[in-house]
């Protein structure tokens, strides 16, 4: 019985491994630049709420847009089976909107079509993401997580004028 302890790697395979590692390092660098330098960010932990009372007290008792300064908005969105509150919002083109979204019942999703805004809505948590929309038009936001029988009908509209 031989007990040779060195590992045999074919030269082609060595190159393949180098190439693979190189590619992966490149990808990692690309998402890091996009995430931290260009600011294409994923949500992070924000704040907690009590899903049993969130529809009665606090900002989601009165969901909708708040204008902070010209062209700068906060949007408080409450998800519930099977609708978003509010169902429609209107902002001027070029506005920066920060969404604060939560659910008073089950999990939902919030995807603003034709943009990068896409987030999971988890009861007890607040999903916060910011976006600036320059192009006027009607953007639908749809529920992207199964939330019960009429999930397919759950959507709203952001009008950019």
């Amino acid at each position, binding site marked *: 019985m031989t007990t040779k302890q060195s590992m045999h790697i074919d030269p082609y395979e060595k190159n393949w491994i180098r190439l693979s590692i190189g590619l992966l390092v490149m990808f990692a660098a690309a998402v890091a630049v996009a995430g931290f330098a260009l600011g294409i960010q994923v949500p992070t*932990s924000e704040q907690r709420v009590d899903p049993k009372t969130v529809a009665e007290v606090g900002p989601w008792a009165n969901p909708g847009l708040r204008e902070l300064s010209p062209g700068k908005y906060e949007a408080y969105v409450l998800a519930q089976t099977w609708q978003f509150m509010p169902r429609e919002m209107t902002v001027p083109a070029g506005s920066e909107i920060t969404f604060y979204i939560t659910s008073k019942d089950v999990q939902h999703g919030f995807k603003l079509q034709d943009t990068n805004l896409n987030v999971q809505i988890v*009861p*007890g948590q607040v999903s916060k993401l910011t976006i600036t929309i320059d192009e006027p038009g009607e953007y639908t936001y749809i529920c*992207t997580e199964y939330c019960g029988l009429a999930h397919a009908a759950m*959507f709203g509209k952001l009008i950019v004028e």
Partner: protein
Amino acid sequence: MLENYELSPGEKKFIGWHLVFGILALSIGSLFGPLQAFEHAGLDLYPYLQPLFKSYYQGLTLHGVLNALVFTTFFITGFLTLTVTYGLTRPLRYPKLNAVGFWMMVVGLVTTAVPLLMDEASVLYTFYPPMQAHWSFYLGLTLVVVGSWVEGWGFYYTYYAWRQENKGVRTPFISFSSLITMVMWQIATLGIAAEILTMLLPWSLGWIDGADPQLARTYFWFTGHPLVYFWLLPAYISWYGMLPKQAGGKLFSDSLARLAFWLFLLLSVPLGFHHQFVDPGVPAGWKFLHAILTYSVFLPSMLTAFTVVASLEYAGRQRGGKGLLGWIRALPWDDPSVTAQLLAAILFVFGGIGGLTNASYNVNLVIHNTAWVPGHFHLTVASAVTMSFMGISYWLIPYLTGKKLWKPKWAVIQSWIWFVGMIIFSNAMHVVGLLGAPRRTPLGLAPYIPEEWNGHLLRVGIGGAIMFVGMYLYVFIVAKTAFAKHAEPATVEIPVAEAMHDPQETPDWLDRWVPWLIGTVALILVAYGPQLIDQIANISLTSPGFKVW
């Protein structure tokens, strides 16, 4: 030594029962796939299923649970029983223990099936709270998982006994890789074990008032990502350890094959947050760390790609294939088992590329929860894995039953049908997902569908119809084989590939468990520990259960 070893009739029967339940689950679960695809294309057949099946979602839950959880777990535990015992050329150390594990899985399956069929658990196979299923659904799933653990313990005892009898010998590759698969699974499933036992089960029984949906997601995806490696690794065992032999070649590199499996053990678990990139309750920094770790688990898959292709090229050249690509044509494409696995591997290339996209942190914002995602995993679990298992069963069922495969030619055609259907289906799903179509949604009922999705949704339906034919042709062929009254007797040799270099030359550190296990646990503690402690310390069991279907 392998040539003379034969499993006992009892062992063959035992493995056969795994396949019976697995393929039965697949054939029921797959009924709903085409229905979903047709629904997307505008043909809603669900009204005709009343009152047997109440909704799209009851069907989708059955589709996910039966195909992705039940079929896979039964097939894999059965297949690993074969690879462990045949590779070690010794029977199970405690066959009764394995039998207990198996029947626990069966009891668990029945316990889960009852609420599913009664529409009391239409929560999809991810069962995110606070949607609340009947407690028997969670209990049944627990039994399936624990049953698979018990079978795994049976493998470990068997390995230990073999080790005592064979000191200093390298563990045969197919057994070695099977054991790693099982260890990885047992570590990975601690996540849903914690989720169900500490939260969902007491909550559904009314013992606690609320669940913490965010913590539940974290627990779930601790298991949910390595779950896909639990599906994939048995296919890799076949691609590395068996397919080269079937194709007429050898395993190109025994040591790199082993290294790849160790890396899968090390890296499969600590990256679950890449399923939670858009979750609100997980800090972005942790998500980024898991994104990087996800890239690193791509490395053993790249190793696999190289070794498998090199092994096949060697086989093709042995068979007289010439030129840069001529060896591909020289492979035995008339062998249904080989064809199924080759086509599986080709589809997996596209699945891998898509997977890398999904894993890319902020790029995930574009595709999260869109139809892209099921488009992706029908290339992986429903093709790379399912087609490989189909291919394996084309020799395994004749081996177990002693009956020749019914019409091998049709079995070759079967693989091609699935392949063509899948290309149409998955391409359409990817595209319509990029355009923004959500997953888990009966799009025929959605009021917001733009005109431009319709052509792609039609292709989803066409691909689904072709896949339907491919799936049930498979079920027909294996049923015809297994239940044939006057079949020709089969003399099947279990294909085990020799390595180009004697495995005894493989370095010793690639056959030692302790350092790798320590590394695995350490990496999990680093990548998950602080977040788990934080989320558990701040647990808020505030969500009551909802039945919204």
